């Protein structure tokens, strides 16, 4: 959620901090600030994006400092609530990522001691605690302070009286140390530092680090020094650019013919009529699988629901999809279970916790992610990269379709191993997969038709999405996309459920988007549409090219290519993405960075 950076070295700290913060901006961007110690401790913080901070900030001299980009969890977005927070004597500055669960009691205690609070944040409590305990040794003060904290935190602290020290501490929020030459860093994650160093130390929960210009010490909860491994990071972080599109989201929707090709590259062979993964993955998918559990959050949960249909249809293995945040509390599993974690960033806290839990129970773990080197890839038995390239827009688009395709490839592979699919059938699926990019291009060509329909949705208060079978999770995703970026209330329903309650909400001001595929669910959904229209709302159908019947039932129709069977979910998703995009654009919403949302949620 929030992004943290600390620097202690020979370069100008303010420039280094702002540079690194720019690379952390995807984590949170409602406000930002830095603190630098030169002769004295100086702070500058502001509401808004890093680029705004960069323009307005004066030069802060010094070669040690901390920087923060904020995604609000406690307290509204104001300058006072932005980090760093400073102590009453203005000598100690603290930045924080996480949630302090007992901050109210701590705040009361401190206020009784006469401390005046300037903000509504939980972070400020940490600052005043450290300041109270400070008696000349910063890490001692931090030790004592964190003993009183309940909750999650990754913090970085500097003190004007000890300008050679940068202290960090971690509990359940990510924090790493970047080891440089004549300089060292603390950060929330790796991309922030890669420009300056590729050597990192991962801090574990309960540890504190003391970072000086030429050395790094890590201490455990008993203040004993710990020897930590220095890891070499081999990957590159390249920035994406909008390339002439008005928004990253539109560019990323248009990237899909390419991102789909990338998912298939090296895995689906048309000539050899086979799906190939590396040996590790093939081992995990073989050797008798009884059940598959997929854990995920948000959009990934919906792609997993779609994946469930595909895997069950092709392999006859029971698939359970669970919200990662709930997995820890329920879930049955054994050694013949495969747990698949689906997470675009590889850092989603809830999903990581579920994977750790699964591992501890002896299950096989597999991760589907877009981020190489992420925590998820390190804690699972094997991982499959969706290879979509960086996705900058907070709302997931190409990573969603890539995730469904990876799950489809997994389904095909297991089906091959279990012989539940014949070679001809497999070959047909491979051909269909290879044709997907051009089918998507066909959908993208209908941009203008989708825009016309979006105009009808622009002023609605509520929009409902319905679908049956695999189209049900797509309706959930369609509603989520619309909600996320246009701020219109939207909900997805299994078409059969409408009459069990939600019908009451339907009026002529609540349009319904119905996903209609020519399969066994066709007649039923046509019937559902009839029921809906009888109550007033306009119906927008997403239907196949050669479906002529639907014209009689829907008010507006958006078409996708016929004869794609199981893979229809991909072009349908693209239509839903474009629909949401255009509605949001017509309403003037800030599409790439919706209010209150962050790309990767690392708190639970």
């Amino acid at each position, binding site marked *: 959620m929030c992004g943290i950076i600390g620097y202690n070295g*020979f370069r100008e700290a303010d420039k280094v901090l702002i540079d690194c913060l720019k690379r952390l901006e995807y984590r949170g961007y409602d406000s930002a600030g830095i603190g630098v110690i030169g002769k004295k401790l100086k702070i500058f913080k502001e509401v808004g994006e890093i680029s705004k901070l960069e323009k307005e900030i004066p030069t802060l001299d010094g070669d040690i400092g901390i920087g923060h980009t904020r995604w609000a969890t406690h307290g509204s977005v104001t300058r006072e609530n932005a980090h760093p927070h400073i102590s009453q004597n203005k000598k100690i500055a603290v930045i924080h990522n996480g949630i302090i669960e007992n901050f109210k009691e701590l705040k009361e205690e401190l206020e009784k001691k006469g401390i005046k609070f300037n903000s509504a944040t939980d972070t400020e409590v940490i600052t005043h605690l450290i300041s109270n305990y400070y008696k000349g040794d910063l890490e001692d003060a931090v030790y004592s302070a964190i003993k009183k904290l309940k909750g999650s935190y990754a913090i970085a602290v500097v003190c004007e009286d000890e300008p050679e020290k940068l202290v960090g501490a971690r509990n359940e929020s990510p924090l790493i140390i970047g080891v440089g*030459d*004549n300089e060292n860093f603390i950060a929330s994650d790796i991309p922030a530092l890669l*420009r300056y*160093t590729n050597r990192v130390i991962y801090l574990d929960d309960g540890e504190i680090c003391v970072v000086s210009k030429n050395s790094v010490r890590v201490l455990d909860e008993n203040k004993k020094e710990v020897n930590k491994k220095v890891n070499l990071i081999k990957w590159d972080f390249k920035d994406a650019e909008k390339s002439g599109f008005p928004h990253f989201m539109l560019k990323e929707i248009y990237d899909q013919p390419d991102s789909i090709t990338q998912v298939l590259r090296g895995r689906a062979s048309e000539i050899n009529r086979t799906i190939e993964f590396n040996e590790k993955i093939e081992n995990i998918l073989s050797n008798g699988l009884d059940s598959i559990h997929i854990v995920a959050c948000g959009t990934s949960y919906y792609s997993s629901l779609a994946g469930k249909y595909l895997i069950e249809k092709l392999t006859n293995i029971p698939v359970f999809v669970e919200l990662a945040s709930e997995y820890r509390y329920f879930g049955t599993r054994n050694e013949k279970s495969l747990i698949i974690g689906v997470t675009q960033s590889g850092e989603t806290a809830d999903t990581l916790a579920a994977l750790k839990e699964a591992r501890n129970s002896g299950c096989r773990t597999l991760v589907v992610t877009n981020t190489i080197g992420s925590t998820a890839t390190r804690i699972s038995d094997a991982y499959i990269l969706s290879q979509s390239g960086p996705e900058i827009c907070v709302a997931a688009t190409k990573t969603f379709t890539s995730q469904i395709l990876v799950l489809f490839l997994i389904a095909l592979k297991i089906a091959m191993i279990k012989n539940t699919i014949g070679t001809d059938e497999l070959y047909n699926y491979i051909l269909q997969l290879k044709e997907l990019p051009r089918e998507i291009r066909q959908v993208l060509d209908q941009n203008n038709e989708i825009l016309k329909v979006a105009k009808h949705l622009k002023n609605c208060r509520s929009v409902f999405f319905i679908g049956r079978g695999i189209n049900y999770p797509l309706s959930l995703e369609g509603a989520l996309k619309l909600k996320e970026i246009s701020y219109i209330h939207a909900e997805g329903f299994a078409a059969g459920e409408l009459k069990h309650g939600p019908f009451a909400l339907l009026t002529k001001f609540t349009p319904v988007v119905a996903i209609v595929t020519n399969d066994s669910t066709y007649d039923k959904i046509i019937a559902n549409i009839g029921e809906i229209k009888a109550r007033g709302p306009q119906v927008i159908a997403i239907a196949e090219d050669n479906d002529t019947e639907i014209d009689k039932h829907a008010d507006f129709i958006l078409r996708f290519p016929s004869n794609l069977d199981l893979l229809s979910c991909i072009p349908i998703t693209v239509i839903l993405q474009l629909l949401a995009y255009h509605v949001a654009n017509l309403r003037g919403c800030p599409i790439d960075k919706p209010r209150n949302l962050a790309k990767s949620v690392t708190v639970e």
Partner: protein
Amino acid sequence: MKCVILAAGEGKRMHPLTFTRPKVMLPIANKPIMEWNLLNAKKAGLKEFIFVVGYKSEMVRNYFGKGEKWNVNINYVNQGDALGTAHAIGMVKKFTNKFIVLCGDTIFGSQDIKNIIKKEMSIGLVKVDSPEEYGIVETKGKKIVKIYEKMPKPFSNIINAGIYHFNNKIFNFIEKTKKSPRGEYEITDSINMMIKNNDIEGVLLKEWRDVAYPWHLLDANEEILDKIDKKIEGNVEKNTCLNGNIIIGKNSRIMAGSYIEGPVIIGSGCKIGPNCYIRPHTSIGNNCHIGNACEIKNSIIMNNTNVPHHNYVGDSVIGQNCNLGSGTKIANLRLDKKTINISLNGKKIDSKLRKLGVIMGDNVQTGINSIINVSSIIGNNVLIGPGAVASGEIKPHSKIL
């Protein structure tokens, strides 16, 4: 007085050898290019070093550490982005104010370094045969007038050698230097600015060797090997024949029937023989296995590589961790005896050599009886199958079956 060595560059023209190591770490006579500079600088009296690193900096750091092995003191500064020589030199501002700068990928002699130390504010100059490939320097007496960019018809054959003696005045000019047409901050631009109000002297060098393309490593290897003295540390069996200047490292075993004609250097922990033929100007790294019926000539073989049975390697550079299958042979002479053209990175270059074998990266495996054609460039992690023929440029991770 500190010695700053610029070691941040990737050395793209040295692909595929520089995919896994920075250019300055390429070995010549079993020492990285940079170590030759360190030793010569140490001989010239310098003991405090600052290495400006960047690309694959961990390789430099892991090898040199803090300098204890050579009794010198090494400090590191990370350049971050490769923005040019002026940017790199500017990084050391906080660490020194009187210093020598060496380009880490060019080998300088110790006497020349001594001469540069004697003159504050000087740059090294050298005479070359093909000045159109470098930037020439115009002098008036001993003073430098201007350093020029590369030009097709240069009016002099004296070029900028890449070794400088600066004091902290240079930093002001570095800060004022603008980006050159190729997008970098060049120290030559800073010097040209400084010349306007300060005197800079040119010092002509006697020894100088730079390497641009992989086959130049063989020339440099030859030159340095010609100067070595005999030193045998390993275990040499009876019925071997060792002629000329040969260095054999600790724990290396030379088995019966081996015929070695110096100058040759063999690293430590190697297993050589039985019955192999190692000809002049060959460098073999550590932990290598050169087996029965193998012949190696004028080549560089890096650490942990096996040339184990019935192989021929001539005029080649072979990377680390390679394994040649039994019978793998490397062709090094065109049947029509013309000079050899090499295609590297998509460009055709005339090497002007009559003999050139293979430039092979790291982790390459070849199957039995496979054939590597003249002037092949084989990338890292390539697999060449049994009986396969490899020709031309083969990019990393490919398979020729």
